[in-house]
């Protein structure tokens, strides 16, 4: 057992876990943050994507201990109160989700994509960048639309800040 100290959605936490505990298990089982999902166990589907120190990571493929000292943001931590993150709003407005299972990981990956590419996003880039997130419901059509829409909204909201 080890104590892992980290910041999750802005709150400092210390959790005693078995050394083999995965980050996703710490989030789901110990902190009850069940918005982060497990879909494949092999780092392929991206349902488990969270941000570690601002970068998208697959939380099913790293040990909780590797996040010691890090700042983790999950799907539960991106809205400001009742105000949705622009990516969340874009997924809703563009019908970018159906069953909702892949959605948290999609949104967390998509935010990272927009951050890394800034205003340089087009459909082909979004599709290439989403290669690590699998959705079985939407056929990606509306997810791609949502990400492009959100990229515009995020630029606007950054400009306003």
């Amino acid at each position, binding site marked *: 057992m080890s104590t892992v100290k980290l910041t999750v959605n802005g709150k400092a936490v210390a959790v005693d876990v078995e050394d083999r505990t995965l980050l996703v298990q710490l989030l789901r089982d110990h902190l009850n943050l069940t918005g982060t999902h497990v879909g494949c166990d092999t780092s392929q589907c991206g349902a488990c994507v969270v941000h570690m120190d601002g970068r998208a990571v697959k939380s099913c493929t790293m040990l909780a201990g590797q996040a010691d000292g890090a700042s983790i943001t999950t799907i539960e931590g991106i809205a400001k109160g009742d105000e949705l993150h622009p990516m969340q709003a874009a997924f809703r407005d563009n019908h970018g989700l159906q069953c909702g299972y892949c959605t948290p990981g999609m949104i967390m990956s998509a935010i990272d994509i927009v951050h890394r590419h800034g205003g340089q996003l087009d459909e082909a880039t*979004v599709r290439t960048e989403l290669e690590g997130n699998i959705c079985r419901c939407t056929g990606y059509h509306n997810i791609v639309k949502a990400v492009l829409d959100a990229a515009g909204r995020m630029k606007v909201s950054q400009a306003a800040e």
Partner: protein
Amino acid sequence: MGVEGIGARVVRKEDKRFITGKGRYVDDIKLLGMTHAHFIRSPHAHAKVKGIDSSAALKMPGVVAVLTGQQIVDDKVGNLICGWAITSKDGSPMKMGAWPAMAPETVRFVGQAVAVVIADSKNLARDAAEAVVVNYEELPAVADMQAAIKAGAPQLHPEAPGNQVYDWVIGDEGATDAAFAKAANVVKLDVTNNRLAPNAMEPRAAIADYDAAEEHFTLYTTSQNPHVARLVLSAFYNIAPEHKLRVIAPDVGGGFGSKIFIYPEEMVALWASKKIGRPVKWTGDRTEAFLTDAHGRDHVTHAEMAFDANNKITGLKVKTYANFGAYMSLFSSSVPTYLYATLLSGQYNIPAIHAEVVGVYTNTTPVDAYRGAGRPEASYLIERLMETAARQLKVDPAQLRRTNFITQFPHQTPVIMAYDTGDFNASLDAAMKAIDYAGFPARKAKAKADGKLRGIGVSCYIEACGIAPSKAVGSLGAGVGLWESAEVRVNPVGTIEILTGSHSHGQGHETTFCQLVAERLGVPISQVSIVHGDTDKVQFGMGTYGSRSAAVGLTAILKAMEKMESKAKKIAAHALEASEADIVIENGEFKVTGTDKAIALPMVALAAYTAHNLPDGMEPGLKESAFYDPTNFTFPAGTYICELEVDPGTGKTSFVDFVAADDFGRLINPMIVEGQVHGGLVQGIGQALLEHAIYDANGQPVTASFMDYAMPRADDVPSFNLSHTTTLCPGNPLGIKGCGEAGAIGASAAVINAITDAIGKNNLEMPATPDRVWRTIHAA
């Protein structure tokens, strides 16, 4: 149409919880004292279980129990059933071997459970499973369907000699033979419909909680049809009588058919929960999903189509071998028979059809309904045949289809189905216009100059949806009725709850079903809640599959609404001292037509519940229910056209354009309908280009993770150009046909027709991987 009524692109009510991480899936639920199950699964495709030594595991801290197949048999938990009886051509019933929830003696596919470890945590259960020693005696296995039916093949079940489940026929063999005898041209085709893994993104899961004091079970499960699960668990598996078993299907992360069935894991969790006196949770991992979720498709077919001198189809002969895997799953028997062969007429006037289907056991995961279920296989076969015929007869493939379209409705096909309505020319026209079919030759020539092989492929699909009426499916062998139920509750304050037997696992019922209420009453959808997925809350219902929830489920809601409105009008008329016939409902008010007299819905509801001043003899309350059983299947149809390029150097396919023109009858929410089509198209494209559940000759699965099984990803597929042509379905009052499966039914033929057009060779099996395409291009 109001802003939230029928036809409006209303943003989904359910989305907020999913985009904020507040969805509640089975694995998100924790119960006090909950234990965790880990199944011990056979690594062999066929073996005798000679012994299970769990002594070391039981000594490990945190291990609660190790339970075996023999124990579940001893406790008289029922074997898994197949709910649709099929009769062979010789009159004999289908031949089935027993399928116990955990194998006591013989395992017949890799992944079949022989025992389960129950422990305080998931990790402890996994650790302990490693310490359980199962002694197997390997038996010869057969995974390939053609090998399984050969003399001398390993035999799976003594009940099914030759590994044959049934040999079933449909249609008029004499008339078909006569048509072929007179044919001017005969087109022949051999087609394999590749085996697929459904792969809903949420793996299956179950939590069973037994209350010893009440002798009552609660099951949280990933189900598309919780009432059907309760019925089967109760009536056939002896788990508990129905009133002592509550089944809850909370948020469910996709189904595509694979979550219709009641699986061994739910049965074992319930049984184990009672045995150990604590809640038991099981959550599958992705490899377990590949090993145990019912697979789809897996047909091998030889077909011949006869044409007269005018290129009119005169006859169709089909012989199909359908792989069922090692056991007959819940509705498996109906998929290659009544859901497949009854659609072999496609969109075409075919006077004579004869089809024979042989169901085969192999040492592989059971096969059952997967998005489209039989109809994709039929559509793929017919549309590949039409394309092959056009090439052989040297006519334009779109024109050959047009020559043979059914244009008069109703149309009785030779294979049971009576198409009620449609306009196949309209959807073909719309799709050809959208893709600029006429301009294709010029584009092909330009691509050739750039070193690319460009192709175009047409697919005109039809499907039978709604999966009803009960009397008809009953006469064909179904063990259940296929109606749907609804209850409308107007609360005393005027808000509305709709209880539906349909189940949403991505389809957006919480929005679309509210839109019907908004349309009829003029109230905002925020005043309406949809209640589903819990057998303690909702009346018995049949669940969601077969594109039935709008055509059948929503119509049941309409019927209940009509009853409620009739009563509410009486109350309003009484309060307004007007004639009931003069009351109209607008904007949430009951108005006396032609006057300014009105009473708002909340006041009518309050009057119904205070019952101070109701018409004489009227019961208090405002709550009505309905069961709706349609008169026919519905027949969504449409045309998909795909234009793509093949790189002759690599065999890689790139999409140029993909258009879809669908006729779904009335659309409730076009945004949601389009989403259903997008998803279906990608599953069809996935089958055509990427997906294949493969076994080696010994029955070892080769594709048991996303590392090996190629799921369609965002960069594998295009964006789509969708349109709708509409003929209203006459079979239900809303005119709805259903949209959930169309994409998966029509897309794969369009892709393969386009690739084979591009490369100029007709024979190409799915999935058309670059390797396979390159070899086909360069084959002698």
